[in-house]
């Protein structure tokens, strides 16, 4: 049986946030008497993550995804509740715990700006107590997986964003952590760089059985990497489960555009009991429920003379986006 590697129970976090009124008067008032309010950004959440799982955290900006990741890796003290990661209390930041995890942030970097990435890798290797031989071996292996070579010897400031992100990944993985916390790792990358990064993460997970917790605003990252998602809305978990079940729930029907050979066929199809969205000449768009899609298509192909057929899936970004804003799972 696969063990739970992350165990979160009734976790809450509050921050003191200061408020400022607009204008000069507000500025002076704010300078002398700062008004603060305690804001509960994470509200009583509980979840478990199994070893080797890739879990995506979904939520609108400010929903609390990054705060959850930062509490999981021990950067922020929780206000209430308990967290156990790999058997450790993260906020104690014990050496063995830190050797087991890594945090990668798409918008922040740890590489030394003026030096080639290789220098940062060897620095990290000495911090993680790796000898030169072992460090060299791991750099070689990871650089092959990430498909970077010459870039290792070029100053970081001269690298492209994609090359820099790959180097950041290598620096963060040199100690071969079991748990990866990734906060928007594909932020700002072009489509090819995003795809390469996702490919690498899939391969890394497969080869090392590492657990990956990921936040991203790019739905492609989530759909291609995560089987399970945790949706966060205003600091609370609104959905925790399989991604395909969520999509089925949110989008129970598919639209199918059928191009018939003759208009007569299209008329017959229109009157054969399917839910028709629209029809023009020999083209007809029907709606079919996800669970009956195979049998329905079989019937159509066997009984009608079909020239062409298109299955239109509603864009995932659109479906999830609506859920994240409205927190309504019955759309």
């Amino acid at each position, binding site marked *: 049986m696969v063990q739970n590697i992350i165990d979160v129970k009734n976790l809450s976090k509050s921050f003191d946030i200061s408020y400022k009124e607009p204008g000069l008067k507000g500025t002076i008032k704010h300078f002398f008497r700062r008004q603060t309010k305690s804001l509960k950004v994470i509200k009583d959440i509980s979840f478990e993550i199994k070893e080797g799982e890739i879990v995506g955290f979904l939520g609108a900006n400010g929903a609390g995804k990054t705060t959850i990741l*930062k509490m999981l890796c021990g950067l922020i003290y929780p206000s209430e509740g308990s967290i156990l990661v790999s058997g450790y209390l993260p906020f104690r930041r014990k*050496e063995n715990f830190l050797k087991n995890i890594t945090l990668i942030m798409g918008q*922040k970097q740890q590489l*030394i700006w*003026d030096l080639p990435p290789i*220098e940062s890798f060897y620095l990290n290797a*000495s911090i993680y107590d790796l000898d030169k031989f072992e460090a060299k071996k791991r750099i070689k292996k990871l650089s092959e997986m990430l498909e970077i070579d010459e870039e290792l010897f070029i100053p970081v400031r001269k690298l492209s964003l994609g090359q820099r992100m790959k180097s950041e990944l290598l620096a963060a993985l040199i100690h071969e952590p079991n748990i990866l916390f990734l906060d928007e790792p594909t932020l700002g990358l072009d489509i090819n760089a995003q795809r390469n990064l996702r490919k690498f993460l899939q391969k890394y997970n497969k080869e090392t059985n590492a657990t990956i917790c990921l936040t991203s605003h790019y739905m492609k990252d989530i759909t291609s990497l995560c089987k399970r998602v945790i949706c966060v809305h205003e600091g609370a978990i609104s959905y925790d489960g399989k991604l395909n079940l969520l999509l089925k729930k949110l989008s129970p029907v598919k639209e199918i555009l059928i191009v018939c050979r003759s208009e007569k066929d299209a008329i017959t199809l229109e009157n054969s009991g399917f839910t028709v969205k629209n029809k023009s000449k020999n083209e007809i768009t029907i709606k079919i429920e996800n669970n009956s899609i195979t049998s329905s298509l079989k019937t159509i192909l066997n009984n009608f003379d079909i020239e062409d057929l298109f299955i239109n899936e509603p864009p995932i970004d659109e479906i999830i986006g609506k859920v994240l804003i409205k927190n309504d799972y019955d759309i």
Partner: protein
Amino acid sequence: MNFRKYLKIYKKFLHTSLASELEYKTNILVDLITAILSLIGSIFLLSIFFQNNGYIGGWKFEQALIIQAIYTILNGITNTWFNPNLTEIVKHIREGTLDFVLLKPIDSQFFISLKKINPSGFLEIMLGFFLLIFCIRVNQISLNLIFMTLSLITICCSICILYSLWFFISTTTIWFVKTWNAIEVLRSFLYIGRFPLNSFSFSLRIFFSIIIPIAFITTIPSEVFLGLSQLWKILLEVIVATIFLITSRKFWLFALKFYSSASS
């Protein structure tokens, strides 16, 4: 704490930091020229003060030069280690890159206090030592083991006090976010350390001994060099340095509990 591991990491810090700085040759050259001109300017200024009256606060010009030498060494240490590292703490906290430091399996205070060095500060340290050797000859100070030990202890204590004060102020960034001004004020106070404590009024002497212990930083080591220091003063400096070091450490660990990291 694994001493060998930390030594190995420090060697790497030295290597990467030197390599980073050497990327900008002109900058290093300007820093070196600034260090030389700054020392010449300070000695010139000091000589103007002593022009009309041979003594200030009971100190001769040649004796006051010892304070200048110790100040130059300390300023060199400040520019080599404290300035590049401790001013970065503010940046780390403001931009949230302290996250990377806290997630490394080494002591975070060690990491943020020693990661960088500014090689041009070495010249200042060397110039300070040359001036000190010159002062030892001019003031006919005899070098013996007790003298050497006491001067080393007091200079080390001075470094600890200065580091702790700076680190303490930088740590408050966790709550106040911006503390550049406080660090500038500390640096300004340090300039005052170039003059003998006795040359100030009684109230200022109390202020610079108790509130901001600049007096401990330069005057006491200088008194040791001149054989003017009393044992209780040296002991007091050791106690003050120990208290400052421990307090800054405890304060850092306490402050980290309030670290909220920057938003993404």
